[in-house]
């Protein structure tokens, strides 16, 4: 039998976490190196495993491992990846490793902190990799606990309120997952938790709608979707930089991933009904959160709302019923994972110096922190979807994918595209005025009198640099990312389109004919 790559990837950090209590850590430095090395090993393993085992031309599950765990209740340890989960697993390994590096200055209860970080590492990957509904529910719940603890122990002043709100929201949401999962498992002749088997069950349309709604609430909390988003600014407002990076970089993506995996993949009929709702919620997310972000005076809350705003594009892309839209949605998740993590890390760096998050108390910070200034500018540009960076490609793909979608009427598409494009104006307004109030202008004398504004240290530059490399890399040549999940999303959309009445393939061909005709093979042609 082959080496169980995925199981190893999930269990290795968790096993390593169990050793944390016994590692000698006299000078307080051994532990963080230990965590970092574990993170790196796991990340390298992820990359190597996918590089050597994964075939990007296959659309189905790969590297599947299935062991009976509690066969009596049909619980299997079943993991596997397809194009949907694989990029997110890589993202998780990448961001979590960087988050460990970002946590370098943590001195309060380091043992518990690194233990939780490593448990999170495995738990998050498990969410993306497991292929069993019951197991999914378990890991989904399991990964909440470390986040709750990290929030409530290392957070800001109102950390308990924020952590409680977080746990009520997400645990409340996962109740719906459990109900829906059990319903789906029990339905029909065979009792099974296996996701693929469930996806093949022929669930009646009305029931699909209920199940869809249940999942939508659960994942809508996580993504988050308006009006279920209010836990996020509170949680973000109180979290520390590493927790931020995980929240924005990975946890929000779980919502999007699960939406695609379950709502779209398992309940295609209901998705057809719900898709317009998703689109409208997406637009509301984009505009509403952008406006709220503009009005926020607290740096962390500002960025938190900008995260919500960006997730709106994921919703629109999922509901576009085109290859391009779905591809854009996945790309937006990965891209925002990188960009959101970088922005929140910078907030942390800035807070370490200014000890305030209120924009009114800052100003002119850029003068003594020139490198931080440069990094802020680069990441803000990435976030406002500057071409040449990943966010732009993702948003453009969603825009084009939705505009050319044949599943909606022309009027609806025009209205949605126009509204979503307003986000294109609003994003630079709040991000650039944030930069202006934070970094530009004459120095705020009250601030400089109190705090020593030291410029970024090499570790911080390294973290941002590592995040910017893929951001710019994807922005310059998006194919490096899109090609690794393309097969899966195409297959997913094809399956979806079969369920939309009145959408024949001939029509798609006609709609896309232009695109294919235009694209002669990439050769040098003279005329």
């Amino acid at each position, binding site marked *: 039998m082959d080496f169980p790559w995925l199981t190893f990837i999930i269990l290795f950090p968790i096993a390593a976490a169990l050793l944390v209590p016994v590692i000698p850590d006299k000078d307080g430095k051994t532990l963080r190196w230990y965590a970092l090395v574990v993170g790196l090993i796991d990340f390298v393993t992820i990359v190597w495993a996918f590089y050597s085992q994964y075939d990007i031309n296959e659309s189905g599950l790969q590297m599947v491992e299935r062991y009976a765990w509690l066969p009596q209740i049909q619980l299997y340890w079943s993991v596997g990846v397809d194009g949907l989960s694989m990029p997110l697993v890589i993202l998780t390994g990448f961001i979590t490793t960087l988050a460990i590096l970002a946590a370098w200055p943590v001195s309060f209860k380091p043992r518990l902190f690194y233990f939780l970080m490593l448990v999170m590492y495995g738990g998050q990957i498990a969410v993306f990799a497991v292929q069993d509904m019951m197991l999914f529910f378990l890991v989904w719940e399991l990964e909440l606990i470390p986040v709750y603890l990290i929030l409530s122990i290392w957070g800001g002043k109102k950390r308990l309120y924020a952590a409680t*709100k977080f746990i*009520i929201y997400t645990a409340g949401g996962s*109740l719906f997952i*459990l*109900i829906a999962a059990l319903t789906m498992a029990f339905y029909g002749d065979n009792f099974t938790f296996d996701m693929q088997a469930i996806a093949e069950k022929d669930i*009646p349309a009305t*029931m699909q709608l*209920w199940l869809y709604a249940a999942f939508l609430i659960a994942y809508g909390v996580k993504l988050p979707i308006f*009006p279920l988003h*209010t836990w996020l600014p509170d949680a973000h407002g109180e979290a520390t930089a590493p927790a931020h990076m995980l929240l924005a970089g990975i946890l929000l993506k779980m919502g999007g991933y699960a939406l695609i995996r379950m709502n779209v993949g398992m309940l295609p009929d209901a998705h057809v009904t719900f898709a317009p709702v998703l689109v409208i919620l997406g637009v509301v997310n984009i505009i509403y959160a952008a*406006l*709220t972000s*503009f*009005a926020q005076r607290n740096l962390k809350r500002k960025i938190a709302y900008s995260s919500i705003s960006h997730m709106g594009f994921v919703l629109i892309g999922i509901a576009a019923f*085109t*290859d*391009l839209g779905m*591809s854009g949605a996945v790309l937006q998740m990965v891209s925002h994972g990188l960009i959101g993590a970088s922005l929140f890390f910078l907030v942390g760096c800035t807070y370490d110096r200014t000890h305030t998050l209120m924009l009114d108390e800052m*100003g002119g910070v850029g003068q003594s922190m020139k*490198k931080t200034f*440069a990094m802020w*500018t680069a990441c803000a540009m990435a976030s406002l979807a*500057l*071409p*040449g960076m990943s966010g*732009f*490609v993702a948003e453009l*793909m969603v825009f084009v994918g939705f*505009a*050319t979608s044949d599943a909606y009427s022309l009027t609806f598409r025009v209205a949605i595209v126009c509204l979503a*494009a*307003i986000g*294109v*104006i609003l994003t630079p*307004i*709040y991000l*650039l*005025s944030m930069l*202006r109030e934070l*970094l*530009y*202008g*004459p*120095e705020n*004398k009250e601030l400089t009198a109190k705090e020593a504004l030291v410029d970024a240290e090499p570790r911080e530059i390294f973290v941002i640099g590592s995040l910017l490399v893929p951001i710019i890399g994807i922005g310059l040549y*998006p*194919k490096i990312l*899109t090609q690794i999940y*393309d097969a899966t*999303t*195409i297959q997913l*959309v094809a399956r979806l389109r079969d369920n939309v009445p009145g959408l024949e393939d001939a029509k798609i061909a006609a709609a*896309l004919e*232009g*695109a294919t005709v*235009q*694209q002669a093979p*990439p050769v*040098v042609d003279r*005329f």
Partner: protein
Amino acid sequence: MEAIYQYAWLIPVLPLLGATIVGLGLISYNEVTNRLRQANAVVIISSIGIAMTYSFALLASQIQGHAPYRYSFDWATAGDFHLTMGFVIDPIVSVMLSIVTTVALLVMIYTDGYMSHDPGYVRFYSYLSLFSASMLGLVISPNLVQIYIFWELVGMCSYLLIGFWFDRAAAAAACQKAFVTNRVGDFGFLLGMLGLFWATGSFEFTEIGERLSESIANGSISAGLATLFGILVFLGPVAKSAQFPLHVWLPDAMEGPTPISALIHAATMVAAGVFLIARMFPVFEHLPTVMDTIAWTGAITAFLGASIAITQNDIKKGLAYSTMSQLGYMVMAMGVGAYSAGMFHLMTHAYFKAMLFLGSGSVIHGMEAVVGHDPVLAQDMRLMGGLRKYMPVTAATFGIGTLAICGVPPFAGFWSKDEILSSAFHANPALWAIGWLTAGITAFYMFRMYFSTFEGEFRGGDMAMRKQLKLATLPNFGPGAMDVRELDATSEGEDEGHDDHHDSEPHESPTTMVLPLVLLAIPSALIGFLGMPFANYFEAFVHAPGEVVPTLAEMAEEFDIVEFGIMAGSSVGVGLIGISLAVLMYLQRKIDPSAIAKKIEPLYNLSLNKWYFDEIYDALFVKGSRRLARQVMEVDYRIVDGAVNLTGLATLLSGESLKYFETGRAQFYALTIFAAVLGIVVFFGVS
């Protein structure tokens, strides 16, 4: 010959490499890189120098009649959808490449002198190089998406460079305003692009044009919708080329260092809008309403800019409004279908306006020796005067630029402007009339600028005037700036009054600054001869795709001396009237300008306050969006979140009560879930 085309992508990549090397140096070895100062400049200047040589080689090859060259590769794919990128070299591209690289090279040489004492010298060079790379990338783009990409990138470079002196509140406000205003235009551009792609399935200019006119002809797309898409795309150039009503960012952009005002906000980036219209010509020419909109937008902008430029006292702001006005001419030319004329004016304007801006920079550099590093004082023409004595080369080149922009024959501006005006006359005499009137105003304000800067007595020592200028600017902080800073500014202003000892006389700028001026004077004076109506080499080379252009011999034959005489005579005539007025008012002082200003005070104030656009936009959009944002936040906080907190309270209460009723909460939890599941399964199983 093929090889030089294959590697044409090097033209934007070389400056990009330069920027990357220096930028990485700045980030990783800041002190060392900054200490190397001119070594960085040499790297960057030589990279753009090579790009320039390359561009000229391509231009030469194109002039010899080499076929256009195109290269593309798959950039992004999803299923059947392929998005390609690549580059294209054809006559208009080769001309644009040559213009951009020459101006960029000269501006970079100039920068060495202008920024020599600035601590951000190296950073400035890396930004300049990054901008050049983006601009060159824009020029060689073969399709709409790629243009959009570089369009945004030049916008970002413009943002970085306007905000270069980031400790100044005004610069911080200006760079944000520039970016956001441009995003408003890009919003339209993006929507138009998506619409056109939906309608035609293509991002290529000629294909969009062909398919769109086909679709309109066979009725699958209504002409109204196609027009809407066209106008949306045109919004991009409206913002980028500072056309009415999105022109407000350009004058504020003068907060950036002068070299970038010359390169970005006069010669290249703002002209990108005109270039895009030229590229989109195959699409627009089938849509008469779009063409009319373009023409009228251009005409209104030309007049608006000129009417504001008359009263400006800041030399750079005056030039900025003049740029806006000249861009209006180019856009108008495009709108009336005078493709070559518009591009020709773009070229002549790039040279003479770059020179004028660099000249103004030289003046400011000289003034700074007297009044100190304060843009309010160093750029105000009320403190200048008589500078010709101190800076003869600057004065001479500025004079040539002034003559060129005023359309005095035989300088460059005469030929290009005249061509636009005569095309406008054939399209619509009303457009011509606006252009003609604007030409007169242009002559007036440019000579007003020249006389108040270089002639008369030097007024830099006038302390009363300095104080008055300083006080006048105090409340003038950027929108949204914190009021606290105003206090600082007052005290700083007072400090500066007596801290350092300045010279009493300005001086001529160093060679690195004067040399580019002289080199730019040559094309400003002579390049017009390429586009004489009876021997229009330019039109024979650069013309709209598909347009049949007469050969040079035919041109000479068709040339109507009488018509040319009338057209040229009238525009030169109105120019001379403007110049004479300026002579009487600002050179000989026979007419008192302030007396006239008093007589027509409402009009004077309208012009001085820039037609109150900033105030109106501030009240409507800036304040409006802030208010809206605050309201949305209130809603979020009180209603959306408030509802949740209430539910939280409710669950807490019920939880508390449960505690008393039940001891095993987990069992209850499990039981509820089980009941729910059972209920659902039974319900659907039965139905």
